């Protein structure tokens, strides 16, 4: 993105240096370095953080659910919208997962996954339709559906609760199992990330999300199918939250009506920390995914570094504000550079 408005350079740099300089300039690199720094410091203080079986597994596993939700959230934010309902969508699909195993004995695990993704997609479609057709800001619509979906969840769940003994062992194994030391849940999340990030970066339909987020009116005038893209973004966000809901049940083994409460803010936080601009049009899914890892890895590292429970939230808050300030500084600098380039070209 930084290279789009570059003036014609006198000598063309070699491909290798271009890749290196691109990597150095990329917004994601800073976040990745921060993540690695957190891991290194925590491991120095306590080698178990990385080198014990549980430690390595949790490092990969814990942020996987948030990563799925953050990827969906990032797509929505890139179109200059926001989806506050993802936590409630996750809660509903997690409970649906448990109910399916209880009410339909012997149901194939794959069918449960499809049902969860489908329910999430439908809930996302409702969000998208309200935003795209009613032309009401997504913040308001999804704040409404956050409460509506949670209300449905509480009414449906009532005082019921899914216990570990209600779920088949093979299904619960998905939440903690590993293939070649890599947790299954992480593999699922990374596959989703790679596919979605590739589409968003390389396909015309993917680039249109950025165009819409940069300037919705211009995108419309240019003839882009704004409504369809916004619907797609919300369906994707809902479906990924639905998938995360199924995996939530597999990992945590218990589901109550409060499952996933507050997740929406973590997902937005992850996307913003990862360089997805809240005003739309800027950022990558890789950034959001690394943001999710950074957010939860910091959460796990702070107790090891001896920082009190109460301060941990403050640190996360500082991180989000820091990310936004950094974005602003970078944007101002970029703006100045572009002006200088224009002056120089005259």
């Amino acid at each position, binding site marked *: 993105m930084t290279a789009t408005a570059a003036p014609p350079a006198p000598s063309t740099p070699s491909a290798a240096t271009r890749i290196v300089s691109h990597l150095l300039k990329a917004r994601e690199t800073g976040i990745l370095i921060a993540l690695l720094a957190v891991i290194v410091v925590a491991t120095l203080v306590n080698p178990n953080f990385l080198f014990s079986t549980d430690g390595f597994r949790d490092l990969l596993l814990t942020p996987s659910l948030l990563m799925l939700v953050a990827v969906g959230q990032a797509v929505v934010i890139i179109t200059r919208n926001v989806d506050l309902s993802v936590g409630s969508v996750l809660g509903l699909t997690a409970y649906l997962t448990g109910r399916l195993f209880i009410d339909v004995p012997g149901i194939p695990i794959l069918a449960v996954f499809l049902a969860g993704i489908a329910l999430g997609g439908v809930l996302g479609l409702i969000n998208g339709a309200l935003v795209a057709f009613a032309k009401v800001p997504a913040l308001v619509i999804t704040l409404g559906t956050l409460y509506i979906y949670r209300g449905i969840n509480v009414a449906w769940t009532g*005082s019921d609760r899914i216990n570990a003994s209600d779920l088949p062992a093979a299904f619960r194994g998905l939440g903690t199992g590993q293939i070649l030391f890599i947790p299954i849940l992480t593999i699922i999340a990374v596959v989703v990330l790679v596919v979605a990030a590739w589409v968003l970066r390389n396909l015309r339909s993917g680039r249109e999300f950025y165009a819409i987020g940069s300037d919705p009116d211009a995108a419309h005038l240019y003839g882009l199918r704004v409504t369809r893209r916004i619907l797609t973004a919300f369906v994707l966000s809902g479906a990924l939250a639905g998938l995360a809901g199924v995996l939530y049940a597999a990992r945590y*083994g218990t589901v109550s*009506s409060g499952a996933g409460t507050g997740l929406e803010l973590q997902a937005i936080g992850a996307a913003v920390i990862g360089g997805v601009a809240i005003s739309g049009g800027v950022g990558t899914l890789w950034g959001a995914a690394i943001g999710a890892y950074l957010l939860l890895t910091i959460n796990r590292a702070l107790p090891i570094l001896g920082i009190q429970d109460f301060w941990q939230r403050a640190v996360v808050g500082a991180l989000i504000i820091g990310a936004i300030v950094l974005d602003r500084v970078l944007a101002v600098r970029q703006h100045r550079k572009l002006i200088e380039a224009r002056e120089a070209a005259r």
Partner: protein
Amino acid sequence: MFTMQRSRRFGVAITAAAAATVLALSGCASGGGDGGGDGGDGGDANLSVTFLPKNLGNPYFDTSSAGGEEAVEEFGGTFAEVGPSEASPTSQVSFIQTAAQQGVGALVVSANDPEAICDALDEASSAGVKVVTFDSDTNPECRDLFINQATAEGIAKVQVDLIAEQIGDEGQIAVLSASANATNQNAWIEMMEEELAANHPDIELVEVVYGDDDDQTSFDKTAALLQTYPELKGIISPTTVGIAAAARYLSTSEYQGQVALTGLGTPNQMREYVEDGTVTAFALWNPADLGYLAAWAAQALITGEITGEEGDTFEAGKLGSYEVGADGTVLLGDPYVFDADNIGDFDF
């Protein structure tokens, strides 16, 4: 007095009236009670009892509410249960206000915060609603009675005894609690520290962490504890959500069987983990009995049988007779220990 009685009879005749009338009616009923000679007149007391647990979707409170409902049916009142979906300090306020406006006879509350709901409870009291707290108390001046599941000493002692037995009375332990401002958990943890210092000098309590009674948070906090303290021998989780989440983490962890886990849990949640050997024994009282006793106490307050003074006694159906202790508290009894041998006998 005579006109008051007449107007009350008249009020009874149009029982189908709106909530305002019901309020006035209960106001008159307590007035009559003060005048004396209203003892056997339970028939026209407002025996509607509303249960307000910390949150819905918590099997512990499902069981206590079921016990409450059983008691309310026995004394012929009407039962209702309302509550927030999450256990945050102020989430109960609106439910208390609604119940007061509806003019229920008594509100049976498990407080998420000792202070935050006090104003709302005071308003309800001045509207004639009797306030009984159970499981988790408010400040004493905000309620008429507190039904205590067990003494803090008893609860703290049974958990310390269990963990001491399971880790051989020496080594590091940690506590996974509910929210940082949960009244009962904080009181118990304080007692545990005293009990440890007094009778178990070789056990070191290294940290208290808070899982906010949320599965995911409790789960992640357990992971952090195990990683932070490689020498950890045991975890006490004095909350039903926390112990189930911790057991789930331990059951798939390299520490299964090496780190002992005990605390307060329900048999249904813990069955899986007692059977696979993650957990040896844990404690609890019977929440159904707790709700049952709270409902009978509410009934005794509504009919004017007791006022909540120390030394008052009342009958609580199948549980027998109870006496109000200091600070308006009623004690249910001793905690109960569940293990592999007896867990099959329970279903809650």
